């Protein structure tokens, strides 16, 4: 799906929709409402009711945003990065920017993103962000500040590409999505002078670029860069080379900047890039991000069931933490950190290295460990997506209508009685175990099956007749992940933030 004439339907060519998407302010159409919502959440977080289930700042991000992300990624693509409110001041930041250098080379990879995801999930659990409108409002502010500062200081969109944990999550799981940016005709890109998809078409002074010269030596085709132009790809993707949704924020700046109308937002078979050779760079950071993120999903869900408290008590007791006279919250932080560090980093990394080593031994191939892990990593996307989808789906289904009385109450608290004087709190809905169980079953079994199919196709490509030997160790890890998450979801979920150590 790259460097050839586009084979799949192109959404940018759909009447009305395509025009809106390609419009200079097309992204703004999505970003403005999201920004207003973000500002509303900050406002309610600081001034609204302190109970999480009655405050927009907690219900919208922790219930609806996370659920809608899964739906959007599954049905379309990285729509939430497209509408990201945190990058709305991007143009302003760029104009105020120091025109500085690149993001430090040391961090131009996914290690920082892995660390940020880890800390977000850990802090989420330790400080019970889901129960605090006030803290959630601060998190939103931190995102705005972080995005603006990094946009202003560095030449590329370092926040999106290397830092943002939400964006990283979306990047990884948008690889299952049915939409992807691609070039309509690779030949046009080969002869393109300005590479505007990458470099942008914005210039402080008008600049005329010559696309073609006639036989008389005079330009026959030109285009102009000026202040009406748009920035190029913030995450530095060059459209004809895009083979994956990784790092694509779906901002469509490439499509707006391209003077040849040669960028397509194509519909593709969902997840097709996962089995395509060379769609992903074979890098440790990228591969471990994908694998660790699947394990983070398990650990995150594990934090919601009763056995986690027994485990934490046992760790605290064995380490002698309970006899030190420390506050329970401090002990909880230390123990949670250990649980998260082991479960979502140490365990997946050691299993990955071990599995790669075993695979190399039994297949007797010359692939390096990095090449093996880099090739196999996409197989962890479907199961990871299934795990997160099952977890976020639980909250989403449970609290889907719950936002209605919260909005109603917010209006009443501000003197707006348009919808009556009594919010219908019954809309909050109690968990429908049958529906939730069914959704979780579909997500987990679909994810596990998808992972096995991807693994089988990758192993066949890498090992040919030794396919079974090449995939067996990884299949066992995937099976263990699946059984683990099934075991977790077989417990009743507890919305518990406090733990009191003996």
């Amino acid at each position, binding site marked *: 799906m790259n460097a050839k004439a586009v084979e799949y339907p192109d959404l940018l060519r759909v009447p009305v929709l395509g025009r809106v998407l390609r419009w200079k302010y097309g992204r703004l159409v999505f970003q403005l409402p999201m920004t207003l919502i973000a500002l509303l959440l900050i406002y309610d977080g600081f001034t609204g009711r302190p109970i999480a289930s009655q405050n927009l700042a907690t219900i919208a991000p922790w219930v609806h945003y996370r659920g809608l992300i899964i739906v959007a990624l599954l049905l379309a693509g990285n729509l939430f990065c497209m509408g990201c409110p945190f990058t709305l001041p991007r143009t302003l930041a760029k104009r105020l920017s120091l025109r500085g250098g690149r993001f430090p080379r040391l961090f131009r990879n996914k290690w920082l993103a892995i660390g940020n995801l880890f800390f977000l999930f850990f802090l989420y659990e330790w400080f019970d962000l889901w129960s605090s409108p006030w803290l959630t409002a601060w998190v939103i502010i931190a995102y705005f500040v972080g995005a603006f500062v990094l946009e202003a200081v560095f030449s590329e969109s370092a926040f999106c590409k290397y830092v943002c944990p939400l964006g990283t999550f979306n990047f990884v799981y948008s690889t299952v999505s049915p939409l992807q940016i691609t070039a309509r005709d690779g030949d046009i890109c080969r002869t393109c002078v300005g590479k505007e998809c990458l470099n942008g078409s914005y210039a402080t002074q008008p600049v005329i670029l010559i696309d073609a010269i006639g036989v008389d030596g005079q330009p026959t085709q030109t285009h102009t860069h000026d202040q009406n132009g748009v920035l190029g790809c913030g995450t530095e993707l060059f459209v004809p080379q895009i083979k994956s949704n990784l790092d694509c924020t779906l901002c469509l700046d490439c499509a707006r900047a391209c003077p040849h109308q040669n960028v397509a937002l194509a519909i593709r078979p969902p997840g097709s890039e996962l089995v395509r050779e060379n769609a992903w760079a074979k890098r440790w950071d990228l591969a471990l991000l994908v694998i660790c993120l699947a394990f983070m999903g398990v650990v995150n869900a594990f934090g919601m069931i009763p056995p986690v*408290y027994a485990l934490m008590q046992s760790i605290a007791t064995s380490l002698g933490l309970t006899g030190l006279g420390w506050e329970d919250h401090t002990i909880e932080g230390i123990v949670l950190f250990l649980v998260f560090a082991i479960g979502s980093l140490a365990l997946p990394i050691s299993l990955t290295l071990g599995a790669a080593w075993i695979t190399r031994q039994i297949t007797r191939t010359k692939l390096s460990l990095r090449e093996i892990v880099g090739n196999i990593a996409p197989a962890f996307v479907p199961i990871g997506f299934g795990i997160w989808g099952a977890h976020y789906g639980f909250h989403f289904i449970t609290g889907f209508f719950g936002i209605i009385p919260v909005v109603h109450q917010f209006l009443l608290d501000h003197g707006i009685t348009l919808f009556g004087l009594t919010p219908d709190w019954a809309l909050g809905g*109690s968990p429908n175990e049958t529906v939730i169980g069914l959704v979780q079953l579909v997500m987990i079994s679909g994810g596990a099956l998808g992972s096995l199919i991807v693994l089988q196709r990758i192993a066949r490509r890498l090992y040919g007749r030794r396919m079974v030997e090449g995939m067996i160790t990884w299949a066992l890890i995937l099976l263990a992940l699946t059984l683990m998450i099934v075991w977790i979801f077989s417990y009743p979920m507890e919305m*518990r*933030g406090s*733990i009191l150590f*003996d």
Partner: protein
Amino acid sequence: MNKSILLLALLLTLVACRQTAAPNNPNVVIRVTPDHLTVGITALIVEVSDADGTAIPDARIEVRGDMNHAGMQPVFGDAQPGDQPGEYRVPFEWTMGGDWIVTITVILPDDTRTEQSFEFVVES
């Protein structure tokens, strides 16, 4: 281990559940029967007295329970007079395990309203 956490939580809850009243606000004390906090139907016993400790028998009591995680349906309870003056019995269902915040609204005969919140940990 879970039982010991539960017991400790309950003890702390009972201690913590007596809230100091402002000069014009009633004292509100909340007890739970049975005292085993698990998912299911229970009864909250709400005791209301004035600043001098005199029972207030004719108050209206509204009870609302919220989980501390957003997105869960709140539970409401209707208070009925209890066995003693100033005591109110509220049938109440813990619908899910986890941290709960129970908000008691006391409406005095002169329509003065006061609200106090209490935290509970409920096992699944």
